[in-house]
């Protein structure tokens, strides 16, 4: 018996596994999370027992109680994104245009940190920035840092850790878009009376903008929700919204607040990203 499928069904069949997976492991949990976010404790019940009461006030309370951590998350994520861009752009530029036969080795080196665990790398940064590392004593000897000043448990350490951890996510899209530029357009710019700086400003940079947008999003979004860097490299004073959600879930067992915070974070990121993409005008570039 031969099976002939009507042509129109084929795309749906191909999409089915993906949809089924996302439905089970993304859509259903999201609905569940939405329900949880408006629950309140059962009166007289045990810790962790909640009932559905459509308490939208959870959102207001959760936001008001954690304004500071929200603000800190976005400030840290923005700083980490800016620093990562500042480091990754020259790096990606050098790999794309100036590395010659070393191009592949350099690309492997960019990806190499992924071979060790994210957690391990962050803990390693604790050593690097710690009292016994080479950095702090050196800076103290040079009188750049006061004798009592430390770096770990400060915002500097958290932002540095995030910058480091998300650097490959910034570098790779930047490299991809720089690599795609036809070197003849750069030659053409020089041919048309533009010096090196003008060529960069008018040709290279605008043509690499899709990479800048992709890289900053891939850095900013996970950085805004990150809690590993803050919990390993930071202190109670550097708590980010990710840390609050984590402790609400696992320590305080306050599911509704944790769920409400998660949704608020998601919405905030979505709005910021939409505004950013609008502003960057990527639809014209890609």
């Amino acid at each position, binding site marked *: 018996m031969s099976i002939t499928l009507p042509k129109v069904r084929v795309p749906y069949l191909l999409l089915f596994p993906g949809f089924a997976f996302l439905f089970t492991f993304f859509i259903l949990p999201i609905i569940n999370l939405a329900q949880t976010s408006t629950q309140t404790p059962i009166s007289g019940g045990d810790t962790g027992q909640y009932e559905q009461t459509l308490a939208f006030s959870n959102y207001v309370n959760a936001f008001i109680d954690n304004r500071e951590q929200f603000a800190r998350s976005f400030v840290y994520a923005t700083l980490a994104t800016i620093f990562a861009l500042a480091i990754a752009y020259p790096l990606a530029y050098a790999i794309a245009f100036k590395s010659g036969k070393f191009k592949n080795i350099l690309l492997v080196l960019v990806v190499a940190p992924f071979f060790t665990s994210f957690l391990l790398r962050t803990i390693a940064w604790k050593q690097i920035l710690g009292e016994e590392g080479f950095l702090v004593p050196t800076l103290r000897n040079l009188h750049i840092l006061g004798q009592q000043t430390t770096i770990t448990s400060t915002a500097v350490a958290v932002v540095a850790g995030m910058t480091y951890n998300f650097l490959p996510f910034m570098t790779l899209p930047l490299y991809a878009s720089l690599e795609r530029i*036809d070197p*003849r*357009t750069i*030659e*053409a*710019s*020089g*041919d*048309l*009376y*533009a*010096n090196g700086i*003008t060529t960069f400003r*008018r*040709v290279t940079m*605008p*043509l690499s*903008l899709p990479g800048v947008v992709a890289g900053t999003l891939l850095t900013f979004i996970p950085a805004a929700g990150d809690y590993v860097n803050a919990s390993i490299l930071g202190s109670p004073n550097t708590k980010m919204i990710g840390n609050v959600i984590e402790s609400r879930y696992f320590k305080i067992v306050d599911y509704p607040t944790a769920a409400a915070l998660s949704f608020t974070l998601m919405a905030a990121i979505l709005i910021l990203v939409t505004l950013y993409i609008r502003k960057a005008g990527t639809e014209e*570039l890609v």
Partner: protein
Amino acid sequence: MAIDPIDARGDLRLTRITKSYGDFTAVDDLTLTIPKGSFFALLGPSGCGKTTTLRMVAGLEEPTVGSIHLGETDITTTRPYQRPINTVFQNYALFPHLTIFENIAFGLRRRGVKDVKEQVDKVLNLVELPHLAGRKPTQLSGGQQQRIALARAIVNRPALLLLDEPLGALDLKLRRQMQIELKWIQREVGLTFVHVTHDQEEAMTMADTIAVMNEGKIEQMGSPADLYDDPETAFVANFLGQSNLIKGRIDGGDGENLVIDLFGQKVSMPKSRSHAVDNSLYAGIRPEKFRISRTGTEVRGNNLTGGRIEDVSYIGVSTQYVVAMPWGQELMVFEQNDDGVPPFNKGEEVVISWEPSFTFGLRGDEDVEAGTEVNPEEIDE
């Protein structure tokens, strides 16, 4: 310091230019003068050094040895953006993020020209695409992109316009049309055009002067007619059109003419058209200069007997014959189909004749295959 285009308008002079990459010499001791206002073609196969030469003139490469002058100004080490020279790149290299208008305005804006809008509009009209000003390059066809690339360069009215295989990416019909247009535009704007190509027909259609390049050197330079009628080397004879080269020996002659012995048959040719250095030479005759007659008929001029028709191809305007000669060589003959004489048949015995003044003589130690193996459709990178 940027060079004022007005001061620099003049002949382009390349003096003893050599460009080496490690052991490889791309351009070898090249000396060349390109007169102001001319349409000059550098013609040669892939890898002959013509693109490297162009890039040195543009400032994108620096010569290993030698100097480049534009008028009286030495521009050998001047940065590309300081030269009053613009290039039409092989794949156009339009800026994909800018509109057509901004692409063309790019050079004007960098030089701080005041009436940008007016000048861009004027050049858009010249290339007959004023309606495309607001589009992006990717929305244009290949032929349109080609014209915009040209417009982007000529709007700056450079002392010198360089064209690097500008028509290489177009299909044949569009290419022929653009060849005529380019030539017309060159006359219209009166700029010096230096055109690099591997397509001999393109070079001959457009250029006033052609320099044929091979292995980093200039083989011969002259007008298209000079190069075709009196090639000095086997490479030129074979690369520009087709040639029959017959091994021979100079066997006397008077003041004006030489007597040549071709495998025992005596023919004559003008002494001035021989480039032989001793008694041995190759007698060259273009296929369309030959006439075929049936054995026994009386013929004028030079003739060679004992030929036999080996192959006949009728191609409309002409019929192409392959004629086997007694010494084993096969000669190409193109006959116009204009005299009502029925074509010859395969196997017929014939006499081949030609006007002595059409003969050219090459050195006897030439490689007769030079310039024949190169694929003319190859794109020079």
